Structure formats: C-alpha cells, structure tokens
C-alpha cells in the first residue's frame, strides 16, 4: 500500500480516530464524549475501508455509529440526575500507568515480531465471501451469535420493563 491516496487516507483517518478517542477522555461533558466516540467509530470504519474491508466498514457505521452510539445517548439521557461531567475516579493515575504500559507492550510486540506478511493485494469483494463463510464454515458460531442476540434482547427488555 504505497500509493499516495492510501497513505494520505491512512494518516488522516488515524489522526481522526485517535484524536477523537483522546477527546473522549479529555472532554468534560459526557454528551460530547459520546459524540467524539461516534467520530472515532467512523474513523475506524474509514480505516477498514483502506484495508479493503468494505462490508465490515459499512457494518461498523451501521451498528456502532448508528445503533450502539444511539443506545449510549439514550442511556445518558435516561439517567438525568447522574453526573454528566465525565470525571475520573481515584484510579486515574494507576489507570494511566497501566494503559501506557499496555500500549508500549503491544506496540513493541507489534513492531518486533516478524508477522510473516504475505504479499497480496486487496480483496476483490468481501460481502459475498463473508456471507458464504458465515453460512458454511462458521454456521455454528453464526447460530450461537443469533441466540446471544436474542438472549440479550430479552434480557434488556426484562431488566428495563416496568411492572
């Protein structure tokens, strides 16, 4: 991947994703944090596109930016008397240290390891291949996932239902 477009796109999207993620930490208002989280999700979707994973990118926009974030917004609004200031607990410093250590460790591993890269091009079309894989090779996990979704749906309804 060394054509100009890909490189520019990668750097712009990375900066957008990580910058938005940092803003999630930094902003003082929880609603702003959710909106920056959405921006970060969209940046990740863009990164998927540069990796020629179009189906996953669209699914990311559809589910994360369109559905999960709206759920989060609803949760924030349904808890009106809770603090909306996006503050930290006493675990701020340990959390920061741990997060830095994890970043350094993973980064080091990522750079040091020889990943045995295959020289290969982009996928021509992923949607069909994913569909076939889901209904052929991964049909059992697929069914289990649907059961999980059903269970989650019923669970959420039972939890929040007024009676």
């Amino acid at each position: 991947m060394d054509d100009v477009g890909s490189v520019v796109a990668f750097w712009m999207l990375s900066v957008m994703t990580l910058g938005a993620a940092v803003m999630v930490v930094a902003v003082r208002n929880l609603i702003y944090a959710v909106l920056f989280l959405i921006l970060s999700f969209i940046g990740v979707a863009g990164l998927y596109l540069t990796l020629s994973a179009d189906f996953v990118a669209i699914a990311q926009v559809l589910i994360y930016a369109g559905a999960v974030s709206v759920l989060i917004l609803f949760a924030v609004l349904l808890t009106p008397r809770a603090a909306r200031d996006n503050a930290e607990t006493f675990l701020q410093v340990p959390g920061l240290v741990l997060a830095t250590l994890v970043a350094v460790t993973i980064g080091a591993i990522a750079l040091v390891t020889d990943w045995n890269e295959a020289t290969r091009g982009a996928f021509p079309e992923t949607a069909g291949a994913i569909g076939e894989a889901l209904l052929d090779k991964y049909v059992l996990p697929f069914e289990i996932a649907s059961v999980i979704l059903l269970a989650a749906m019923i669970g959420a309804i039972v939890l929040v239902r007024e009676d």
Partner: protein
Amino acid sequence: MIFLAEWWDLRDLGNPVGKLLELLGDHGPDWLPYAVSAIVGSITIVVFLLVSLLAFAWVERRLLGRMQARLGPNRVGPWGVFQSIADAIKFVTKEAITSRNVDRWMFWAAPVLVAVPVLVVFAVLPFGEGMVLADLNVGVLFVIAVGSVTAIPIFMAGWSSNNKFSLLGAMREVAMLISYELPQVLALLGVVVFAGTMRMNGIVGWQDEHNTWLIFLQPLAVLIYLIAGTVEINRTPTDIAEAESEIVAGYHTEYSGIKFGMFWLTEYFAGFAIAAIIATVYLGGWTLWGLEEWVPGWIIFLAKLYGLFWLFIWMRGTLPRLRIDQLMGFAWKFLLPLALINIFVAGLEVLIWRENDLAAEAVLPGFAIANLVLAGVLIVAWARFLGRARPSWRPARARLVKELGAVVYGQEG
C-alpha cells in the same frame, strides 16, 4: 447500446467527464483523474439536488395548492416560479438567532452535519449506465448505514437547543429512525435475495436483464420501504418529530434563518434520496424496457424520482399524523412481521428457482402474481389479527334522535 459514445454525447453524462479524465490522465500525475472525478461528481450531485430543490419547493406548493382548492405561490415571476429563489434569499438574509443558553458548538454543527449523510447517499445511486460516483459493491448496505447516521445530528440539534420541545422532538426522531431501520433493511434484503448483489448498478442490471421491475416481485417490500422511507424523511403522516400541534417544531424549534434552512433543505434532499432509492431498487433505475436506448437514462431516472416525490407530496396533502406510540407499534407489530414473512417467501422462491434451474421467463411472472396475492392477503389478515377491524356495535355516524332528555351511551346503545 446505440450510443455513439463521443465525448459530446450527452445521453450519457459520463462521456464528457470520461474524456476530461482521459486527457488529465495523459498529461498529469496519476492521482489527478481520481481527484477531478470525485470533485466533478460531487459538484454535479449537489447542483442537481439544489436545482431539484428549487424546482420542487415551488412544485410542491403549487400542487398542494391545487389539492387544497387554492392557488399556491403566484406572485414572484410567472406562475410564481421564482418563489423558491425568493425564499432562499429570505433564508440567507434572516438573522440566525443563537439563544443564550444553547450549547454553541453543537448548535452550530448540527445544521451543517445533518445534510452530510443525505448527500453521501447519492454517491452510490446510478443516474445512468456508468453515471455513478462510487459503485460500491455493498451499495444497499451503504444506503442503510448512512441513513442510520442521520439520527446523530438531529439528536445534537435537539439536545443543544436547551428546549424541552426540541429535546422531545429529537428523541422521537431518533426512536423512530431506529425502529424503522429494521423493516427498511428487511425490505431491501428481499431485493438483494432476488438480484444476488448489493451493488446498485447490479440491481438495475438484473432488472434490465430479466425485463421486470422488482416492484412486481416484491410488492410488499416496496410498500414497507415506502412507509419506512416516509418516516425517515419526516413528512406528514409521520412527521411526529416536528408535529406542530404538539411540540411546536420539534428539534428545530430554536433554529432560524439559514440554520433552519439547512434542516428544511435536508428534509427535501432526504425525500429525493428515498425516492431515488426506490426508483433504483424497485423501479428499474435508469432503464425503461428499451426506451433508454433512445432517451438518456438519467432523464428516465429523474422522471421516476420526481414521480415518486410527487407521491410524498400527495401523502402530505391528504393524511393526518399518527401518535408516536402508534407509529412505533406500527413498525414493530405490523411492518416487521410482514417484512420477515416477505423475506422468507423471497428466499423460498429464489431457492426453488435456482435449485431447479428453471427459466426466468417461466417462473418470474408466477412469483410476481404469487407475491402480489400474498401481499394483499397478508396485509388484510395481519390487520385483522391485530384487531384493527371496526367494532361492530359502534355506528359509523352520529345517531339522530328527536326526543330529548335521555342518554344513549355505551355498547348496546
């Protein structure tokens, strides 16, 4: 195709642009054609949308005028055709008020962001053969995904306004969008099952190849998509997010001037987008059973698009508004089960067709008739099942009495 494909042949607007790109590719750096094609395509789409908007803001008001036994705008220019231009000037020159306690950043960002998803939808819609900005192979999914993102700017507008009515309107809109996404996706899935592709051009090509429109094979899905689309564009039968008799103007209560203009314009753009999606997916896009050889495909496509938009205008002139819980109930209790049955039937039919290697000409008319009958039966039966039939004891008109003093009340009356 009998097209000459000379660069000046406007039957395919891609010809001149292609020539331009060819020239650029020959003489400039290799990324230049991409950039130029993207810019030219985007500008074309925006110009097309703005022109359509100016035209239809006037057409809608004239048509509504006819439906409502009045004249409609008739002062600015002949038959009032310049009314929309006058309106546009008014929007721009009016003061865009920002109240003191609003959340400034979001209040300003929302009207700008709200137009983005709608504009992006047009990137994957083919205006003619080859006249598509980005022929994504997941076009159908893209349209749905982008449509689901519109909830965010609307929420931003409602929340940042610091107004109860705005917030209520925004929450209603978000809840509606989420609920109607499901039937919408399932309605489009039926098409994908038949066409075997999610590429918009592929779907159009499939319809062209089989000499049919998917509206015949998927009548129920068209209806579901039309209803869900009406909800998404927030026009009258379902405009509860800005129901003026309840919550003043919903999420754009606090907006004025060009900021309100952006919401207003986005509503029109979204209407065009839904009409364009239906025209592409269910009505054969830029094809018309061979006529596209003589008439430019983009004119056929625009004719279908505007025809469908006329349907939205008609609905607006006729129907009252549902209550929010009724609208949500309609999505979950009515549209969703029907969409599920529809997708099941579509899958079954395609299975029968493919497994037995039947000829398309033989099976497709049968499927069309079967699905039409099924759609009618399902709608009636499901409505009965949900108890939508009129209570038999209740008279359809007021009772007429001559004597006074008594009380007729209740069931047996």
